[in-house]
């Protein structure tokens, strides 16, 4: 159709354009003809003028020798006028024949002019002059004849030209009349054809649309071409689409009906406006089952009839809220037909159908869920209690970062942190892991196996103490996060005890061997000693030999002492327990020791006493305590060969219910390796020591249930710290 419109418009344009061109051409042709006519007239006039000019010159010539003769100037001027008139004849285009005639005429004019000049200039006798005049006149007359002939030709040509031009103009006028008459008729015909071409298919389309509107979806338009053909195609496609759309709608409705009826939740369509607001417009099978009403009965009821009286009062507010555009989601109670009340979860949204407003509500019976929730709550409570009250260190932390989410009281107590310091922080930030690699290993195992059982780990408390612990962990999902729940048992004390037991066993074994050996050595040694003493007493040897004997006897005595110490350590005498005032005991020991120190020529030692008053008495063997103290004092004095301060301090530790005795010197510090071994038997730093003194001291203190430790002082020197528990009943560790 577009093509036809374009063609039509082009045809119209061409008609008008060609018409316009034709008119312009016609006018131009007519004016050209008129121009030509005028030109031909001009030619005739020009030739007439030439003739007049020639005649004027002829007249001048005739009058020359009369008394009416013109002046030479006039004569010359007339000749020039004639010449000018003849030149004008050459100013237009001419046919070959005319051009030839004109040339001939020009030659004749040339001759005439020459003759005229002669007539004017010549001075001769009359005969000659008359001849010249006659000759000139004759030439002039010939010229007149030629010009006349040309005028006749021009007149003839003018007549023909006029006739032809008038005829042509008449033809053009007639053609213009025809054109002016035919153009509108042609335009009307074309317009009629176009309009017909438009209206027919439009009528067919209108008819088809009406049928479609009436529900006849099977109607199709046939036999149309061009754009209307395309439009008809589109119409048919639309009808096809409508048909398939209808089918889909029907299927969809069927599907939704099935979904509606087979849904597990009760679905209600409730009227939301007017006097019937709240009336159930539709309900599915689940609704009838859930509430115990048959569907017909439900359809007439208000949704408020299914609510408990409290809930029913809020019904209109709820509907208003939903109509306001908010989807409602709440838990309520419904009543069955038999009167039983049950909890429901309601999700309701507004819905507009055919201009009417409804509420679409989904009700779910949540009785079972409620029960489960209750059980879960109980379970949670139990877990929470167990978690908090556990004697083990329990934590819940994120898997990747180790960020603490929950920790129990035991954790707080053992680590020394407060809950606020721990929660939301990572173990890395707190520096809990002594070796972070332990955590990395644990996490990788957890990621792989999901659980780690009884792994020994090392934690650092806030105070900096290292705890050895056994840790069992499990990866859990906690609130959507990957977390670790860990149970950590402190085995620091257990480890220490185990070590001590091990040591005790070792010592016991050594002691038994030593005692056995000492008994075996003791008697032969006594024999050897007696023999040596006899030999020495009797002077059986030379002087040199006597000195050697004395040295042997001295060494034997040292062996005896060692044996005695060994026996003493291995099988100490059973302590005789009494109430002992430590301060008094120390004083007494110091006096004895200082004497001994003096005897040992060690004058540079200053003794400082810092005894706490009112110290409670402890139950102990006074002699054994004294032995321990002496040991310590001598040890201190030996540690200060160049003199120093021996400081003895006592204090009562009420919280631990023990007495503390500190013996400090200002001698050289003890290296770390020696610190660990100093209480072991046979360990000594002295040249002549047996290495039993401190071992025995430790044994004696431990027999009293106390402890003894050695630490280096900050500047120089070392301090022995003894703690003896205050006991109320006498019992001795054997």
């Amino acid at each position: 159709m577009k093509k036809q419109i374009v063609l039509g418009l082009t045809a119209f344009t061409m008609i008008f354009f060609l018409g316009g061109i034709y008119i312009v051409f016609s006018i131009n042709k007519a004016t050209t003809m008129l121009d030509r006519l005028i030109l031909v007239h001009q030619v005739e006039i020009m030739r007439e003028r030439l003739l007049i000019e020639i005649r004027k010159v002829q007249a001048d010539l005739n009058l020359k020798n009369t008394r009416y003769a013109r002046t030479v100037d006039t004569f010359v001027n007339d000749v020039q006028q004639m010449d000018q008139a003849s030149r004008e004849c050459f100013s237009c285009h001419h046919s070959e024949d005319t051009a030839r005639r004109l040339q001939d005429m020009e030659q004749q004019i040339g001759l005439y002019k020459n003759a005229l000049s002669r007539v004017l200039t010549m001075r001769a006798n009359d005969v000659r002059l008359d001849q010249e005049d006659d000759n000139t006149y004759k030439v002039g007359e010939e010229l007149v004849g030629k010009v006349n002939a040309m005028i006749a030709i021009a007149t003839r040509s003018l007549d023909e030209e006029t006739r032809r031009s008038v005829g042509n103009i008449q033809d053009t006028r007639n053609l213009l009349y025809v054109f002016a008459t035919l153009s509108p008729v042609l335009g009307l015909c074309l317009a009629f054809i176009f309009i017909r071409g438009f209206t027919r298919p439009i009528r067919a389309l209108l008819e088809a649309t009406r049928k479609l509107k009436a529900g006849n979806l099977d109607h199709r338009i046939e036999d149309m071409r061009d754009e209307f053909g395309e439009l008809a195609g589109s119409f048919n496609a639309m009808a096809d689409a409508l048909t398939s759309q209808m089918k889909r709608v029907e299927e969809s409705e069927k599907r939704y009906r099935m979904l509606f009826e087979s849904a597990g939740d009760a679905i209600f369509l409730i009227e939301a406006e007017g006097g019937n607001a709240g009336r159930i417009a539709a309900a599915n099978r689940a609704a009838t089952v859930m509430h115990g009403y048959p569907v017909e009965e439900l359809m007439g009821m208000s949704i408020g009839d299914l609510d408990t009286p409290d809930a029913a009062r809020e019904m209109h507010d709820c509907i208003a809220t939903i109509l306001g555009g908010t989807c409602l989601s709440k838990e309520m109670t419904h009543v069955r037909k038999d009167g039983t009340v049950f909890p429901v979860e309601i999700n309701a949204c507004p819905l507009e159908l055919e201009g009417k407003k409804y509420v679409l509500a989904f009700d779910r019976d949540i009785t079972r869920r409620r029960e489960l929730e209750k059980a879960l709550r109980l379970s949670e409570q139990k877990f929470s209690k167990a978690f908090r009250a556990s004697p083990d260190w329990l934590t819940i932390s994120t898997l990747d970062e180790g960020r603490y989410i929950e920790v129990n009281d035991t954790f707080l107590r053992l680590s020394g942190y407060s809950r606020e310091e721990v929660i939301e922080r990572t173990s890395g930030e707190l520096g809990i892991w002594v070796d972070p690699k332990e955590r990395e290993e644990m996490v990788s195992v957890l990621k792989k196996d999901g659980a780690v059982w009884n792994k020994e780990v090392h934690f650092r408390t806030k105070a900096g103490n290292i705890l050895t612990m056994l840790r069992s962990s499990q990866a859990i999902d906690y609130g959507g996060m990957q977390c670790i729940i860990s149970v950590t048992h402190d085995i620091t004390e257990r480890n220490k005890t185990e070590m001590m037991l091990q040591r005790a066993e070792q010592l016991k074994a050594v002691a038994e061997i030593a005692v056995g050996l000492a008994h075996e050595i003791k008697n032969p040694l006594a024999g050897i000693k007696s023999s040596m003493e006899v030999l020495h007493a009797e002077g059986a040897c030379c002087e040199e030999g006597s000195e050697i004997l004395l040295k042997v006897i001295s060494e034997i005595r040292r062996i005896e002492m060692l044996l005695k110490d060994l026996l003493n350590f291995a099988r100490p005498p059973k302590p005789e327990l009494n109430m002992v005032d430590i301060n008094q005991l120390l004083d007494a020991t110091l006096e004895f020791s200082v004497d001994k120190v003096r005897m040992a020529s060690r004058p540079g030692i200053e003794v400082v006493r810092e005894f706490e008053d009112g110290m409670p008495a402890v139950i102990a063997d006074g002699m054994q305590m004294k032995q321990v103290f002496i040991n310590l004092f001598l040890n201190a004095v030996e540690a200060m060969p160049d003199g120093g301060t021996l400081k003895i301090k006592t204090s009562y530790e009420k919280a631990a219910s023990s007495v503390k005795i500190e013996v400090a010197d200002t001698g050289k510090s003890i290296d770390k390796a020696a610190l660990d071994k100093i209480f072991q038997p046979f360990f000594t730093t002295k040249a002549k020591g047996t290495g039993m003194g401190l071992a025995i001291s430790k044994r004696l203190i431990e027999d009293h249930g106390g402890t003894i430790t050695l630490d280096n002082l900050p500047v120089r020197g070392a301090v022995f710290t003894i703690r003896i528990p205050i006991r109320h009943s006498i019992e001795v560790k054997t």
Partner: protein
Amino acid sequence: MLISIRFETLCKLLTVFCLLLSALPGCKKHEALSPITALPGPEIVIGLIPEQNIFAQMDRYQLLSDYLSARIGRPIRWQVEPHYGTIIDNFRSSEIDGAFWGSFSYLLVHARTGAEILVRAEDLNGISTYRGLIFVRRDSGIKSIRDMKGKRFAFVDKATFAGYLLPLAYFRKMGIENYSAYLKEVYFTGTHSDAIYDVLSGKADIGAAKNTVLQKIETTDSRIKNELIVLERSPAVPENGLAVRKDLDVTLKIKLKQVLLDMYKDPEGQNVLEQFGARRFIETTDEDYKAVYEYARQVGIDLQTFDYGGKK
């Protein structure tokens, strides 16, 4: 869409349409030559002697007058008279301001009015002189003065060197005292060309004229070469020159002279000179006419009293 013709396209169509209209057949109007603008100042009138057919003479000088008018700033008009004598009379009565004179006519006006010669033309071959000739038809049988007895002689004018002074000198040389009695008929054609044509056509037996006019006719008419023979030649005398009144404004005189001398230097002037049949104008003084003076003296002409054939 195809219907929505763009404005530019419309313009193009209109242009094509207009071109079509303009190409339609029609008689082109001939533009009239624009008239020469009249310049302020009084008209200068220059006389022309009828050296040849007077109408041809006027045509020859027309372009020169246009050129001079434009350059000098005053209108110039030629005055042609049928007789040399009339020009001399007009000059003497101050009706004209100057004229292109033949060599003898200059001598006459100079002697009587003190006319001042300014320039003369040099032809395309660089020649600024001419000679007078006496000629007869080859078939006339005239070979010497003896043969001329009882024949018809066509002179040009009494005031011409070639057309009268030469025959006078010739007859004197040949010992003929009264040529009128010796010849059958003597008449004056008025122009050199007519003298030649009259001999050619048999209207006269003997003729006298300028060689330059003869040469000019010879280029278009082969009869000159075939049918004429020259019996006598004069010595070379200066070609026609412009002499003006003695009392003419000096500035104008100088300007007129200068314009004519400089003509050959500008293209328009060259064009006019070419039409005129000259290469240039050269300066000319009374001295240049020495030969003519001598010739006239020999003939026995008294310049002051010689009857040149004027009316006055």
